[in-house]
């Protein structure tokens, strides 16, 4: 039997749980834990420069690896700084465990120094939270935290740890709990067979079917099975922003992604479909547009692990609660030896879809000419080509995010890393850092804008400390592009506070941290700058590119319209 202090139990538990890297920032209430981490060398600690970055970095790692990210912060401001990152993970169902120091138990409720009720503050944005009441419960509570974070519909779990729980003087028996049971928590392991059968029958009878798949496919590792199912049926497939990469985007059955700024053919196909097979997607308002006009002729099959996602905004005709991977597997076996009831309908449907594709081909944006300022879209395409579509790509939020989603094509899951649900500016750079530190041999690109980057740029210091070679592509249009776009469209171009009037000299800024920064002002300079940027995979390079600030993201769904109601350019609409 081994006696350990609470702090040593935490360090030992992280080792036993196989956690390789944690992201954090020390402070009074967490110091016992930091001391325990100092006295071991298996779990590496990455010292960030702001706790929000710790959560985004752990989140980036979680999205890229499929494993829970781990964060360690101190009480009060340490914990509240982490809140935006916790909310980001919550909205996108990302597994994460956040260990928060807390003031000693006898001080709780007395407005002690650096005291915040972080369990209360984070209650609406966590899957669950725990407060440690006795040091001896630490191993079991931590095991529950990791179990909850990673299973079912994943999400962040907060563990609040008062300082006296980790005191070095008090020691208790430590045993690593291999398994835990929570009596009220039993995530489903398979879908209802009757419902799956019904869904398969509907697929075989469909005339204008569309697969609509989301982040749930990525989370449950169902990409391979999904691809097999979609190939087997020959149906078109569109994904959500979160589901990008869950089906190879360069495949001809892929229509791209759907919704607010989704592809024309995706939104048109959804609107005209007679069957929508939604898997691991949640009919978010950025997808459906006006739900009362949503897909008027479609029956809806909805597969999701979270029953509360089903019929939340759009009623499902065939609800199936279950993990995407196992449900898809069952669908594939039920399809064996069966044929489409209306075999002639599918080629007709494809003819219609190819017609939509042809309508927009070559009209997506107007490329720049030599000597002109670059268009943001063509920068993304150029990065796509130079990285051969194989990079991990993180983004911040705004126009550059939508352009990245539109013009970088992903054939694999877990490579597209973006804050979809919460739309957190500042996410991209620390997330890229988290990915790169865990996947050092891969190319990690962060598309950002001069607005978003300035929200988390202090992490340059962290990258310096840990030698993290991310590639930062700053699409610099000197304005908060998406805000400006809305102001152009809805506020008669009154650009209230969307213009960033005092930008730093990014080159000098980056160089102050000892990194390389390149500036691209014109079309002609791009190729050489990209060559240089990607020359050494271990080197952080910041590429500051002046792009056309007048560019808008299109297509753009018309507010309160149906899925097919889109602005296609500044002068065209459906």
């Amino acid at each position, binding site marked *: 039997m081994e006696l350990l202090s609470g702090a040593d139990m935490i360090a030992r538990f992280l080792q036993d749980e196989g956690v390789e890297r944690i992201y954090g920032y020390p402070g009074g209430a967490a110091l016992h834990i930091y001391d325990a981490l100092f006295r071991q060398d298996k779990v590496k600690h990455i010292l960030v420069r702001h706790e929000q970055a710790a959560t985004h970095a752990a989140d980036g790692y979680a999205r890229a690896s499929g494993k829970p990210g781990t964060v360690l912060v101190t009480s009060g401001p340490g914990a509240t700084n982490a809140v935006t990152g916790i909310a980001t993970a919550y909205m996108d169902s990302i597994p994460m465990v956040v260990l928060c120091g807390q003031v000693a138990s006898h001080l709780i409720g007395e407005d002690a120094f650096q005291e915040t009720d972080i*369990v*209360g503050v984070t*209650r*609406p944005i966590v899957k669950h939270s725990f407060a440690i009441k006795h040091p001896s419960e630490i191993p079991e509570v931590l095991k529950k935290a990791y179990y909850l974070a990673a299973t079912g519909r994943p999400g962040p779990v907060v563990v609040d740890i008062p300082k006296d729980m980790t005191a070095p003087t008090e020691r208790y028996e430590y045993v690593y709990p291999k398994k835990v049971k929570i009596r*009220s928590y039993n995530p489903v392991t398979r879908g209802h067979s009757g419902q799956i059968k019904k869904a398969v029958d509907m697929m075989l009878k469909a005339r204008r079917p569309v697969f609509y798949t989301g982040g749930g496919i990525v989370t449950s590792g169902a990409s391979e099975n999904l691809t097999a199912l979609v190939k087997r049926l020959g149906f078109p497939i569109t994904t959500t922003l979160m589901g990008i990469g869950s089906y190879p985007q360069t495949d001809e059955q892929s229509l791209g992604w759907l919704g607010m700024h989704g592809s024309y053919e995706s939104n048109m196909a959804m609107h005209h479909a007679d069957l929508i097979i939604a898997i691991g997607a949640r009919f978010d308002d950025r997808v459906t547009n006006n739900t009362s006009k949503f897909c008027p002729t479609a029956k809806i099959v909805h597969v999701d692990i979270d029953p*509360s996602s089903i019929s*939340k905004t759009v009623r499902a005709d065939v609800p199936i609660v279950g993990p995407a991977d196992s449900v898809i597997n069952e669908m594939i076996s039920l399809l064996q030896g069966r044929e489409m009831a209306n075999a002639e309908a599918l080629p007709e449907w494809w003819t219609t879809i190819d017609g939509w594709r042809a309508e927009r081909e070559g009209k997506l944006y107007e490329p720049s000419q030599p000597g002109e300022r670059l268009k943001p879209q063509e920068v993304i395409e150029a990065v796509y080509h130079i990285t051969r579509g194989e990079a991990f790509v993180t983004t911040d939020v705004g126009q550059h995010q939508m352009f990245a989603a539109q013009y970088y094509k992903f054939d694999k899951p877990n490579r597209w890393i973006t804050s979809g649900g919460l739309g957190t500016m500042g996410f991209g750079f620390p997330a890229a850092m988290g990915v790169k530190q865990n996947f050092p041999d891969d190319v990690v690109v962060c598309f950002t804008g001069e607005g978003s980057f300035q929200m988390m740029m202090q992490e340059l210091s962290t990258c310096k400390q840990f030698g993290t070679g991310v590639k930062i592509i700053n699409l610099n249009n000197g304005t908060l592009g998406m805000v400006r776009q809305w102001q152009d469209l809805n506020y008669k171009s009154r650009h209230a506070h969307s213009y960033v009037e005092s930008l730093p000299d990014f080159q000098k800024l980056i160089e102050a941290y000892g990194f390389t920064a390149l500036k691209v002002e014109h079309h002609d300079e791009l190729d050489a700058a990209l060559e240089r940027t990607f020359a050494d995979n271990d080197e952080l390079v910041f590429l500051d590119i002046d792009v056309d600030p007048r560019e808008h993201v299109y297509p753009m769904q018309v507010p309160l319209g149906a899925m097919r109601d889109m602005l296609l350019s500044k002068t065209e609409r459906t």
Partner: protein
Amino acid sequence: MRHIISILLENEPGALSRVVGLFSQRNFNIETLNVAPTEDPSLSRLTVTTEGDDRVIEQITKHLNKLIDVVKLVDLTEGHHIERELMLVKVKALGASRDEVKRTVDIFRAQIVDVTPSVYTVQITGDAGKLDAFVQAMAPIGILEVGRTGVSGISRGDKILSL
């Protein structure tokens, strides 16, 4: 429609705030709330009455079920059930109205549980409708204070809400 949802909840600190927080976070409505430990000390029973159409009630029960601290729940209004609420009311009892209060208390099969020269304290149990009716009947005489427990409920027959 009004629904009565009974919940078995882990008897843990903070569990109640997760339930209550869920209602405000998701813009659901709580009309009454009643909570106390059960015969199993690890469990509390919480009964909430809420308003909403079928879609809203479906979302409420799904989201409640998703809370890790919620062990089990039942929408009592889906079947036959017994609904009770207890109310303590202080009523003005002076002059002629003193007898009137007593008569009304008898009609409602309520009890007077405390007496002063000017005030009767009345205890009454029943469903929410009966309690509302009593308040209405007493209003002209003069209600001084009302304390209601909120609805508690249980299903009729052999159906049981337990682990």
